[in-house]
């Protein structure tokens, strides 16, 4: 077990390292990164020279990479031009907003996806199953930003029930949270539904469910106790990964609803040519996913002995 965890951690470190190589190469590939950063309006030549010196841009690539990774290791993601403060600080300031939005979206997608998935599997080929299939397909095919615009049109403009942008007084002003959270949870609810359905179907066909039925266990108990609990294992893994994905793919939704999270931070950085912010958000997103993957792997090993005993 200890060996397994160690190996997983090692793998994650390698992945993280390669991530920095990819980002570094992508930026250097297009030429002088100082020029990328200098697109920001009002940057003076001496600022550029300072940047070049700070990032060691006159040195060979290997040295440049050393400077790059050295900064990263010390938690230095560079300095944002538009906010005139370290990127990490800006990022951390925005992160809670994104997490709130992501959590709310996650709850909505779970509340829609898992019950419908169960009903679809239990009453296979019924009307509910068709509804579930339709919803899964729509979740996959209708882009979140279209859902967002339709929601704004219906609840914000026509009915006037909900505010169409901003965050309100505090993080927990729920009226502001409903529409963005729903638009964001839309996609995951479809994939959660699909997975719950197929996982439930697999478990319902297993020997122990058959045995439980032969014993004369009431159907409700079979579904809740025997099938549901076992079917949730793969679903929870996906749910964990979806959570991160949701936080990260929230970019468009945050822009539409003017939600001050990290997605919108990235776009603000992009539109005002504030390159360190864009790069910082990308790196942090990658690091976050690597971290969650590691956590899921370890959690899985705790739950399922077959995995930790595998070579």
């Amino acid at each position, binding site marked *: 077990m200890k060996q397994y965890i160690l190996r997983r951690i090692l793998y994650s470190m390698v992945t993280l390292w390669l991530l920095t190589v990819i980002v570094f190469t992508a930026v250097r590939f297009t030429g002088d990164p100082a020029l990328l950063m200098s697109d920001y309006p009002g940057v003076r030549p001496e600022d550029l020279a300072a940047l070049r010196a700070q990032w060691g841009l006159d040195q060979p690539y290997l040295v440049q990479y050393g400077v790059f990774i050295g900064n990263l290791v010390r938690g230095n993601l560079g300095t944002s031009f538009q906010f005139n403060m370290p990127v990490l600080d800006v990022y951390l300031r925005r992160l809670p907003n994104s997490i709130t939005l992501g959590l709310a979206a996650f709850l909505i997608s779970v509340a829609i996806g898992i019950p419908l998935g169960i009903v679809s599997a239990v009453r296979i080929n019924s009307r509910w199953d068709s509804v579930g299939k339709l919803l899964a397909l729509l979740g996959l095919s209708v882009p979140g930003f279209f859902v967002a*615009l339709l929601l704004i049109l219906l609840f914000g403009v026509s009915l006037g029930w909900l505010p169409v942008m901003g965050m309100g007084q505090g993080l927990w002003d729920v009226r502001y949270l409903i529409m963005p959270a729903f638009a964001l949870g839309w996609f995951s609810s479809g994939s959660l539904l699909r997975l719950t359905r197929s996982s439930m179907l697999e478990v319902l066909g297993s020997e122990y469910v058959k045995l439980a039925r032969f014993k004369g266990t009431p159907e409700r108990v079979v579904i809740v106790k025997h099938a549901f609990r076992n079917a949730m294992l793969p679903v929870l893994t996906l749910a964990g990964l979806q959570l991160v994905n949701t936080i990260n*793919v929230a970019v468009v939704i945050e822009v539409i609803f003017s939600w001050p999270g990290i997605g919108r931070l990235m776009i603000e950085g992009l539109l005002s040519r504030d390159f360190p912010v864009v790069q910082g958000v990308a790196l942090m997103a990658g690091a976050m996913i690597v971290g969650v993957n590691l956590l899921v792997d370890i959690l899985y090993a705790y739950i399922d002995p077959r995995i930790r005993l595998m070579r």
Partner: protein
Amino acid sequence: MQTQERVRVAPLVFRIQSFSKVMGLLREAPLVPLLIIILVVLSASFADVLAPHDPEISVKNASGRPVASYLPPFWMQGGSLATPLGTDFHSRDILSRLLYGARVSLLVGVVGTLVAGALGTLLGILAGYVGGWCDQVIMRITDAWLALPTLIFAIFLASILKPSLWNIIVILALVFWTRYARVIRSQVLSLRERYFVQLAEVNGAGTLRVIWRHLLPNVLNTVMVLFSLTIGVAIIIEASLSFLGVGVPPPTPAWGSMMADGRGPLIAGKWWISVFPGLCIMLLVLATNLLGDWLRVRLDPELRNR
């Protein structure tokens, strides 16, 4: 891992010999998605002929002056049949822009996914067949690449490359090749243990010949399925980039940027500027997903439960 040995038939593309077989296959295909895709392809190909107005400049009325901006669709009060789906802020005809916008979505979606497919398939076969350090290097890079969330990675790349049609295609290719590499690698891993590959090796076939004659034809079905399933996501990513203002630069019409243009008016109740392009994206992606699902079941029973 012990997997049941399955009899693999030659991929579909190599089996179609006659016109009647093609027709037979098409008859089985889901009709509505196919029609939608044909419609989009037609409007993209013949946009110059079909579009009633120039998509990039404002519509002029009889006296040569631009018509009003934000004209509603023809069935609403104040709309006219000259601009059937209304006009946008610059008095441009929305229908014409939709027809031309199909070009961007299709071109970027199809070419981007194709390039990604070629790159990913090649690397997947290399990793799976050559194995050893080659496999290790390619798969580690794939893992790290996959850790970057699609849209955020695409935005990051868009911030480095200047926005243009071809750069968007490059971005999509760079974002999506990993999907192919992973699946193809695992398939090649099992193919390479099969007798026909081993016999070819015994007969003295070189690495390139084995890859070209024996492995590639056998993974093509999977590549086609992955292609059809990826293209919808690629179209959505392109639309998102355009929506965020880093897609194909204006005034070229793209469905995503049209939706972005309509965001402000939408709050004022003028819904048609962004809802029509949104519907187009939705229908196209829905159609490709349905067709992809059908292809998946038709071509590869092994993938059916994924």
